[in-house]
């Protein structure tokens, strides 16, 4: 893992006028490793992880009430749903695209799931399946418009996003539905090992997609697509369908997030998620090291990005930072984290 150590050792003891000892030699070797960038290399390759660990350590030391089991629970609960969404967004970003309709898919899925569960009295599994199908269909639209109508992803998904927001408002007539049926709420709220089932659902989704991206041909092709459609085409890869499929996955996961949000808050509303949620998810992916130009990204790192952001939010609340400066402080910390990550990355 670490860089090869050059034997250019200046043993520590000599400057003091004493003979070089064995310990001094070992310390010297260690310092040489650090000096040649071994440590930074280690950090640089796992920036997201180190940002996360640094935040946890700093927060535990300096923020009252942070290092408590129930606080950790709260953070996990708050991270589960954005984690699901970030997986889809990471895949889209890896192809060099973006999905601005994500937040609006969440809203539409929310109100539709509420209607299915509360007004039509559908059983929970049926609601879940239908919402996933809805997400899949919406994602396919995004993919087809981007790939075959050659509309830039930014505009295509912005446009579909607006349309979906309008649809969500029309479907809901502006109202929200609350007090949802218990069997529906059970999808995300069934307690398992002290945490709501939504957390484990997120874990399962993460594992599935991690395997998909890192261990299968689909994943390899995905990365190739990000690095250049031409290169991918040369290697005989059906680039078009990869592009379409990532948008399909993204919206499906977004729809799932919408359903889980609804369960978490026990209210189905058309403006759930929205543009702010989209930006939160993209930011998390970038903190996790995903590149906006494509080719670089990983499920695990993006999820660490989500956790990092939620930790920051949690600390801001625990510290009682003025609500006006909330976003500003959060933003500054994220910037700092990325700068540090870049600084270490460059040495590597």
């Amino acid at each position, binding site marked *: 893992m670490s860089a090869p150590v050059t034997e250019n050792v200046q043993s520590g003891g000599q400057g003091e006028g004493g003979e070089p000892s064995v310990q001094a030699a070992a310390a010297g070797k260690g310092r040489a490793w650090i000096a040649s960038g071994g440590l930074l290399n280690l950090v640089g390759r796992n920036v997201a992880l180190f940002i996360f660990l640094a935040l946890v350590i700093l927060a535990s030391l300096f923020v009252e009430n942070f290092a408590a089991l129930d606080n950790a629970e709260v953070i996990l609960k708050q991270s589960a749903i954005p984690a699901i969404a970030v997986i889809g967004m990471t895949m889209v970003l890896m192809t060099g695209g973006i999905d601005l309709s994500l937040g609006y898919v969440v809203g539409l899925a929310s109100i539709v799931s509420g209607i299915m569960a509360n007004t039509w009295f559908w059983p929970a599994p049926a609601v879940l399946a239908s919402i996933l199908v809805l997400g899949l269909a919406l994602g396919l639209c995004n993919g087809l*418009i981007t790939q075959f*109508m*050659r*509309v*830039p992803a*930014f*505009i*295509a998904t*912005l*446009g*579909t*996003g*607006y*349309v*979906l*927001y*309008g*649809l969500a*408002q*029309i479907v809901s007539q*502006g109202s929200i539905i609350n007090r949802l049926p218990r069997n529906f709420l059970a999808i995300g709220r069934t307690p398992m090992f002290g945490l709501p089932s939504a957390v484990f659902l997120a874990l399962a989704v993460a594992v599935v997609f991690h395997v998909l991206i890192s261990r299968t041909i689909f994943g390899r092709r995905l990365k190739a697509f990000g690095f250049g459609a031409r290169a991918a085409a040369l290697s005989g890869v059906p680039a078009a369908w990869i592009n379409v499929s990532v948008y399909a996955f993204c919206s499906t996961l977004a729809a799932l997030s919408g359903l889980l949000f609804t369960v978490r808050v026990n209210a189905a509303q058309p403006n759930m998620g929205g*543009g702010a949620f989209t*930006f939160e998810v*993209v*930011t998390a992916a*970038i*903190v996790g090291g995903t*590149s*906006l*130009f494509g080719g670089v990204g990983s499920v695990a790192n993006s999820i660490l990005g989500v956790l990092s952001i939620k930790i920051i939010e949690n600390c801001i609340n625990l510290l009682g930072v*003025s609500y*006006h*400066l*909330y*976003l*500003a*402080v*959060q*933003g*500054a910390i*994220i*910037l700092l984290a*990325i*700068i540090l990550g*870049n*600084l270490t990355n*460059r040495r590597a």
Partner: protein
Amino acid sequence: MNIGFAARRGLAVLFPVAAFLALGSRVPHFLDLSNLLNVVRQSSITGVCAVGMTFVIVIKGIDLSLGGLLAFCPMISGVLMLAGINVPASMAAGVLAGTAMGLFNGLMVSKLTVPAFITTLVVGQISQGLALTINGGSSIGAFPDSFVFIGNGAVGGIPLSDLLLLGFLALGFFIQRLTPLGNHIYALGGNETVLRQEGLSAARLQFFVFGFSGFCAAVAGLLLSAQLDTVQPTQGDAYQLDAIAACIIGGVDLAGGRGSVPMAVIGALIIGCLRNVLDLLGIHPFMQNVFIGSIIVVIVYLSGVVHRQSELATRGTL
């Protein structure tokens, strides 16, 4: 940038504009002079932002700090004006603040290789937070008449806002076409080998581009507050995505290296007309979102088709 390409791109955008105007004539009151002047006035904020945004997108960046700067810069100027400082000095302070934020973005992107997305998003959030904190979340207003005149007054029947927009269009066009700086910016976005051959520094260009975008945002923010005679801490939210959409509708390529300022401004006008027409038709607010989304996609699709057709046509004649 050869002229043939610009002309083709121009045509690709003008088609939908022409179609739009033709359809617009069926909408009552749309072609009233007062309404058209209004539309330009309403689009001027997005338009001025789009001038700065064009260069940012050309160098493959993005500027998400507009929302915050559109509130922060006028807030600075507003506080100074209400404290009795004269209008020009107060405005200069606000513009300086915005430009400084933009330069900070440039610094982050060039020296610390932070993705533009993150740094501009964060700077936007910080500016927004400051705008909220300066006056405890409330808006400030009732500014001196000379300031309000900029947003609401007219010269020779033409609103000052429209003239300001025109001025920025000219400025942007001047930089783009008539200065070596412009050429270098497009080289950075499209063909970096040219840059290296001439020994130019990408960092300095990035500084300028983001600084200029911050400058445009500051001016746009002052214009907005002059129109509203208020600085509302969240007044900038609506313009962030509109400015980027305006550029894209105007043919600025997100992959970098291509796009022109006048077309981006036209993109802003298209968006303004769209909203105006939907209002004049009395379309239900829920349906407005559906319309706006679909029409934006259709416009970009059509201009893409026209652009590709004309590309094919020229290739045939070579």
